């Protein structure tokens, strides 16, 4: 078999895995709804910003706080900017922060959880006490303090959310690692001469990860909520439009007292929808990847 054929085999394998995954996933209606919502927002974040403009009105006061209708489907804000355009562009920041913060959080959580569970003993004790600290500190004030210290930039927000949300993941990974490392195939791996790193990356992680994949998706939901919260509280990056930022300005400028519901609702609903999408998908993945939860549909 040439390596070309082998690559083809790899593709076949990938297709097979995906097909079997999709075969189960597609029967989960909650998961399908979640996936559809997220795909919609992803499309919005990728394509949308090229189609709309979100600038201050130059025409003057007559453009400010217009209710929905006509050229402005969702009305305008106090600077005469189109709320619909803001909503579209804001999706970029929310999804970016969600994805990036989740990646950081998963990375830290996985490394700490894996090391803790695999090595056990002193390493475990030290790492877990460290994790406990992160679990119990009130994350919102910490985030606020850190965001205030580091300054309001998108990078900092991602960093702050990532660094404060890994503890739960670390706990779950550790628990799963503890159970997987006792499996005979791990002992077999040792018997063929594998080192610790090899065992962790080739045997433990692949068997732990599906179980926590759902958790990842849920972390993303939390990260997006955190971004919205931070931005709403004024810790967001003022140069980027995000749903949190929109809510922040709407609140600051008295959208409520002006009765400008069109300014508050769209970003709010978007946040809710994205979080719902992630949550639905998280639960669905949990059911699909965790056979113990899989309902028998006969």
């Amino acid at each position, binding site marked *: *078999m*040439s*390596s070309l054929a*082998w690559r083809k*085999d790899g593709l*076949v*394998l990938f297709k*097979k895995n995906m097909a079997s995954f999709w075969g189960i996933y597609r029967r989960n209606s909650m998961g399908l709804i979640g996936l559809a919502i997220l795909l919609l927002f992803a499309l919005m974040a990728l394509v949308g910003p090229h189609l709309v403009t979100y600038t201050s009105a130059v025409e003057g006061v007559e453009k400010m706080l217009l209710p929905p209708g006509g050229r402005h489907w969702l009305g305008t804000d106090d600077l005469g900017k189109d709320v619909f355009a803001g909503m579209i562009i804001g999706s970029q920041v929310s999804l970016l922060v969600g994805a990036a913060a989740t990646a950081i959080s998963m990375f830290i959580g996985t490394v700490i959880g894996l090391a803790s569970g695999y090595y056990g003993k002193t390493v475990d004790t030290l790492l877990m006490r460290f994790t406990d600290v992160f679990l119990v500190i009130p994350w919102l004030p910490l985030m606020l303090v850190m965001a205030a210290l580091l300054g309001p930039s998108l990078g900092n927000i991602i960093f702050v959310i990532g660094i404060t949300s890994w503890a739960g993941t670390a706990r779950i990974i550790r628990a799963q690692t503890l159970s997987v490392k006792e*499996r*005979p*195939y791990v*002992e*077999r*791996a*040792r*018997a*063929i*001469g*594998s*080192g610790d790193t*090899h065992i962790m990356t*080739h*045997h433990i992680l*692949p*068997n732990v990860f599906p179980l926590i994949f759902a958790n990842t998706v849920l972390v993303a939901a939390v990260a997006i909520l955190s971004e919205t919260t931070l931005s709403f509280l004024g810790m967001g990056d003022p140069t980027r439009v995000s749903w949190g930022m929109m809510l922040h300005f709407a609140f600051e400028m008295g959208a409520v007292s002006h009765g400008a519901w069109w300014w508050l609702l769209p970003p709010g609903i978007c946040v809710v929808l994205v979080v719902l999408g992630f949550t639905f998908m998280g639960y669905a993945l949990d059911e699909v990847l965790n056979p113990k939860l899989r309902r028998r549909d006969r």
Partner: protein
Amino acid sequence: MKNLAAIDAGPESLLMIKDLEVHFAARAGLLTALFSKAPAVVRAVDGISLTMAQGEILCLAGESGSGKTTAGKAVLRLVEPTGGEVYFAGEDVRSFRQARLRAFRQQAQIIFQDPYESLNPRQTVFAAVAEPLEVNGICRSLAEKEERVAEALQDAGLSNPRELFIRYPHELSGGQRQRLAIASALVLKPRFIVADEPVSMLDLSIRAGILKLMVDLREAKTISYLFITHDLSLAWQVSDRIAVMYLGKVVELGSADQVIKTPLHPYTRALVSVIPVPRRRDAREKTLLKGETPDPVNIPSGCRFQPRCPRVQPRCRTEVPPYIEIERGRYAACHYVG
């Protein structure tokens, strides 16, 4: 008591175990741990000595709690021995570190009991068999690796190996999985394999095929097996010699036919008497022992079999019977044998 006759290894001996011990600290409850001075010790393997010739199949037989599996793993240092010596091809296994240990493990492999659990469910057949090669940096090119993997699968009796490459273990039958596990041990071309109850999870009808494969490989590739089983009839079929273990010690050793047809030790006699035969049997005398193997934390005084021995004498309760050569190549540890 050491008996040198038991361990006099000829130059052809592949494995020599001398007074091997594996003791663990018992997991005691919190209260026991607080109030007892000496921590309880599980004497899983309590001083066994064996030698194995190149190409030999030696069976460690015993019930659960006899320490047979721990002994097998201790030889490979998958469990660290706490005492005694292990020599493989004349080299001191207990002194191996890092690279040397890795090199040793290429020659000495293990096959586990449960083919469902000993294979990583997320590794394809190819990945599982290629892994030993990758870990040990054996094959340079992919083509070479594929060749070795296909060969190992073929040797393990899986025809059309390349068609199996991208299958997952759950897509294989129980027998095929165990063959896959054997292939992943064979791929390193070992000289010695510890087979830990390799067929006990399989249906009777497919067992024989796996056993035949293992025996054939011994002929074809001069592989020696330390075959671990609780099933004496199985031990008798496949092995050259049988060592019967009870509570961490070997109580009897002899050729397969000797141990099964004319057992010496009362424990072996009882075990042999209850081996089922596939026919109606009423008259045949069976010796049913009372109770079960005791906990290796509290090993009885004197002969460790005495509380269950049907032929116990006062002397047995106080004096440990020596493990001695009764006739050429036959050993037993009982005051009233020989």
